[in-house]
């Protein structure tokens, strides 16, 4: 007790790193990430992706991209809705009129017959939305050589 004088007390204050604000910093970061996260709106359709080595990143804003899914049975889905083959143009046309920068990303199953894809591209031509991407996954060279 004799050692606990006024002098030693003073030095004990600066002994530790001030960690009380650490929690505030961490929570601030946490809240920032939680608020800025955008959740995807649509449910993904289970498909086997086609692979391509020339796959490039599409530098377009999320709101300018319309996903058009073609599932294993060849059925077309737009915005979580099953679309009849003949009515694709009718659905895409108003969306394209609303947003001239629209890019249609065709996410087709790799085993769908080409006639189905052709029907879709023909419908898209009629709707005026001519900027299209065939969504693919990146393929590595090694994989390709084995094919």
């Amino acid at each position: 007790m004799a050692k606990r004088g006024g002098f030693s007390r003073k030095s004990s204050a600066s002994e530790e790193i001030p960690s009380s604000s650490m929690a505030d910093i961490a929570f601030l970061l946490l809240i920032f990430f939680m608020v800025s996260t955008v959740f995807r709106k649509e449910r993904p359709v289970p498909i086997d992706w086609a692979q391509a080595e020339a796959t490039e990143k599409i530098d377009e804003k999320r709101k300018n991209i319309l996903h058009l899914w073609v599932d294993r049975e060849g059925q077309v889905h737009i915005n979580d809705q099953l679309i009849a083959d003949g009515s694709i143009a009718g659905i895409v046309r108003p969306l394209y009129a609303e947003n001239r920068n629209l890019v249609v990303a065709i996410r087709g199953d790799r085993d769908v017959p080409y006639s189905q894809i052709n029907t879709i591209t023909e419908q898209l031509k009629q709707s005026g939305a001519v900027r299209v991407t065939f969504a693919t996954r990146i393929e590595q060279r090694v994989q390709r050589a084995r094919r």
Partner: protein
Amino acid sequence: MAILERKERVSDEIPTASMADIAFLLLIFFLTTTVFNEEKGLPIVLPEADQEEVDVSAKNLIFFLVQADGSVVVRRGESEQEQVVSANQIEDLLRAELAANENLIAAIKTAPSAAYRHMIEVLDEVKLAGAERISLQMLE
């Protein structure tokens, strides 16, 4: 008495030292579980429906005929001669052709019953070769 006083002083404050650990743990959890779904694919611009048909001279055309089983036949517009190639030869073949004629249009004609992936395979090769003018058609 002295011991009792000391005990009270320890429990005076809420322990906030671990708060930062909890917050960082949550933060790292969210950081690692977030998936950025960026758009990836092969972009192409389709011809517009009301566009007039343009006659292209045969020497500026090269056809890639994708058969139902996925095999590829190359037909040069001018000579009409056909040649069976494997998909991974297309890149080199087309690159050589493009070097000779930069106005060349690569037309991919796919059989209706061919799987989508065969068409993508050929389109991939054509893109890799650096072709700018690509046309997609269905094989009759």
